[in-house]
């Protein structure tokens, strides 16, 4: 990682708009052409800019308490300061939501075509407060009730109607039969997707009672 890190010339962070506004609203034919110095200079600059972008795409930057400061924005999001870069809003995404949900958390810009700012390798490696803030964002994004009890599953005409108790209370939902609505994450772990793609999870089918497992027979 050479010195290409931050604040390059006049463009600075605005170049690829971590703040979001650049990426969204405007665009338009005249957008990028507007700024920038004379033609000759420009060519050189563009090249190094491109070089920088390529390098950034290949770079893996790990974030920890030393180099990154997360803060609540007060509008429901998180902001991030990494060195001299400041991102008024970041998006928190799991890289391995099923195999390891507390490791490799990708911190991304909030544009439509978001870019990775850095990676939090392990939740345990950041301070409790930071972990809590990240967790809040993740809880929302990955909202998935965990099924604790199966009361009834009724299948009829290509749909299966489920009545279950989850860690978020009792739920009724409907899945399409025969498709890929029931996904086996492992031998014992099941993910269920209803017709709107709402998700429900059974972390371990062996923890269900035999009678409940019998109701699941249709999908095993």
């Amino acid at each position, binding site marked *: 990682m050479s010195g290409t890190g931050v604040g390059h010339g006049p463009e600075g962070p605005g170049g690829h708009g971590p703040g*979001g*506004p650049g990426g*969204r*609203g405007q*665009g338009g*034919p005249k*957008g*990028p*052409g507007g700024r*920038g110095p004379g033609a000759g200079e*420009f*060519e050189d600059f*563009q*090249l190094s800019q*491109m*070089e920088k972008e*390529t*390098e950034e795409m290949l770079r893996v930057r790990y974030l920890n308490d030393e180099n990154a400061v997360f803060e609540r*924005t007060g*509008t*429901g*999001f998180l902001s991030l300061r990494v060195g001299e870069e400041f991102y*008024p*809003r970041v998006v928190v995404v799991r890289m391995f939501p099923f195999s390891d949900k507390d490791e490799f958390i990708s911190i991304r810009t*909030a544009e*439509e*075509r978001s870019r990775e700012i850095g990676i939090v390798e392990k939740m345990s490696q950041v301070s409790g407060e930071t972990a809590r803030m990240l967790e*809040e964002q993740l*809880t*929302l*994004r*990955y*909202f*998935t009730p965990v099924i604790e009890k199966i*009361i*009834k599953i*009724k299948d*009829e*005409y*290509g*749909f299966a*109607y*489920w*009545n279950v108790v989850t860690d*978020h*209370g*009792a*739920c*009724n*939902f*409907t899945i399409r039969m025969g*498709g890929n609505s029931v996904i086996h994450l492992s031998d014992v772990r099941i993910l269920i997707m*209803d*017709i*709107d*793609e*709402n*998700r429900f999870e059974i972390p371990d089918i062996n923890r269900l009672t035999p009678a409940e497992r019998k109701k699941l*027979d*249709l999908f095993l």
Partner: protein
Amino acid sequence: MVKMENNKLPRQVYTFLKEKGIREQDVLYTAQTDLNAEGEFADGYLVLTKDVLGIIQAPAAEDRVHSFRGSSLLKAELTEDTVYEEDAQEPDREEWSAQFVEIDRLERLWIENGVGCNLLVGKWEDREHCLTMFTHLQKRSLAKLTRGIEQMKRGGSPDFDAEADEYCPKCGRMYPDRARRVCPNCMDKHNVFFRVFRYFKPYRVNFVIMMATIAVTALLNLIWPYLNGNILYNKVLAKDPEFLSGIGLKPDSFVTALLMLVLAMVATKLVLLLFGILQGVLTARMVIGVVRDLKKDIFRKMGQLSISFYRSRQTGGLMTRVLSDANRITGFFVDDAPFFLVHALTMVATIVVMFAMNPWMALIAVVMLPILFGLNRYLRPRIWVMFGRRHRAERSMNSLINDNLTGSRVVKSFGQEKKEIQRFEGSSRRLKEAEIAISYRQNWFQLVYGGARELASMAIWALGVYFIMSGSGEEMQLGTLITFVGYVGQLQGPMNFFARIPNRWADSMNSAQRIFEIIDAVPEVLEAQKPRRLEQPEGDIELDNVTFGYEVNRPVLKDVNLHIPAGSMVGIVGRSGAGKTTLVNLISRMYDVQEGEIRIDGIPIRELSFNDLRRNVAMVSQETYIFMGTVAENIAYANQGADLKEIMRAAKLAGAHEFIMRMPDGYDTRIGSSGRELSGGERQRISIARAILANPKILILDEATASVDTETERVIQKALNYLVQGRTTISIAHRLSTLRDADYLVVIDHGKVTEQGTHQELFALKGTYYKLQELQTKALQLKGEIGG
């Protein structure tokens, strides 16, 4: 999750709004949300007036049942100790929090899709605010809200048209297909039945004969126990003189009578056998014919359906399902339906005969019947569940095998044979377990059901023997008993039949319905009622504010305006996933635009006849497809009448001639699946030749030469240049050198046209195009710099 009627919120919300100074009549649109910021279920309400957007949030409500889409049916059925919304108390508005955002201040409002939860985000004063959150259940109605507000901000009036019902008004079941609005429960099964019946019409003679043979068989079956028991034992062996004289024999010629009886019995069995064979032959003929006719109709329809029809159903699964559906329907009509009457009659006749013979024993038999019937009905579904499981295990094993066969190269090249074998073993173990479970279940069924049956027949035997011994029933003789037991056995068939017929009926009618659904499906991309012709097109294309997305709330193209003058060659560039392919798919009307309009020669393509559109617009797509057949057939695909010389010329223009000639059988080499394999570039050139031969006015090349070396590409381009005279050509390419002959270029980024103009203009603009160009010309140089 409160039930809404015409988008109405609970009364409390309006009272609450009134306190905040918003009158009910000012409310334009309302929506509900179901989560809070902590990721718990919680009610929320969105209210839009022409000035403000109100966001009301109630506290978490985890002690209530949450019903997602389609589950209202179940809700009515369950009366567990759970509290439903209707029974819940009126929400307490003391604890509500509210936020009001002025529409004028709101710069933008959009939905961000999460995995299990979506956010409604608003932007004002340069800050993004997370306004509320909700599950996918509410997404549709919130998407409407954001669209409406967008329309308001553009100065238009929002249209919040009501959505079509998705539940059957009769029984509350959700329609499997919202567009079709057919309730599988309430659909007119008789109607479907008679519709299927029409397919049997050409075979009606067959059918009548079959019915006749079935009836005769049933009659003979009814006679058999009588011959076998009553007549043999009671009359002939007992040398009943009355009987002998009754059939016109001398009183002592019982040997003759015995001979006649044996002959009659042999004849009966022989007729039964013959009729059995006849039935088999008739059935086979009819089934094959009907299934063929059904499939023919289906395939004809499938050709007309739009791409999204196939996308919404997995094609592979669709095909196998259609075939098994067709078989199931005919199976029902041939194996079940004709026997209905026969079995019913046999049953009634048998019971009547039994009562006539001995009312007491008949009573026992008749009482046993419903018990056995119930047992049968109760036990069988369990076995079916097991069969379903085996079917799934089988399917997963098959797809694993299929995966391994098609991907054998990858498996081998990464040396993963061992792991694949392990995977296979796991899969085949599951199949084995399913098989074992089935035989276990079946044995169990045999044991219970068979046991009960034996018990019943034993009871009848015992009673019969008692009657014979005690001599109380004067009619009761050994022969009568044997006949009687024979009749009891005879009842088994109809009983099994009636136990399974309701399911078979429902299943086959559902299969039929599914098939008719395809046959009746209205293609999403529909030809206009009175299509306009386009006989001599100029090839002028215009896109006017085109917006399109594969999913409702995710536009892939946004407000695209583009004019491609007749006869010009336009190059389209842009990042991977920017929407280039989507754009050309719209021009050839694979999909219909959601907003805006596309016109060819000033005529909206929606109004054009399909035939003219397809004839005049040809596309070489990114994914080449080679059909099974010869090279020549593949090239002449769109122009069956082309002669060999034209085929050859097209191949030459596409730079395909040379490699075709190097193949052993030249233009007659068989390619496609089961034929010779072609390289990626070779396939592309065949596709180009196909498009050239189609001779369209508008030619679309989507990465048509991406897999071809630069030299060959140059050859093809020269040929195309010569070809594009008087033709409108749209060419998509990542390699900019491909587009060097383009009259002008269009840059698409994130579904928008960001730059357009000639090479020089775009280069001078120093935008995306410039960047791409620089990157490509200086790629090597750049690489060197990074490396150093």
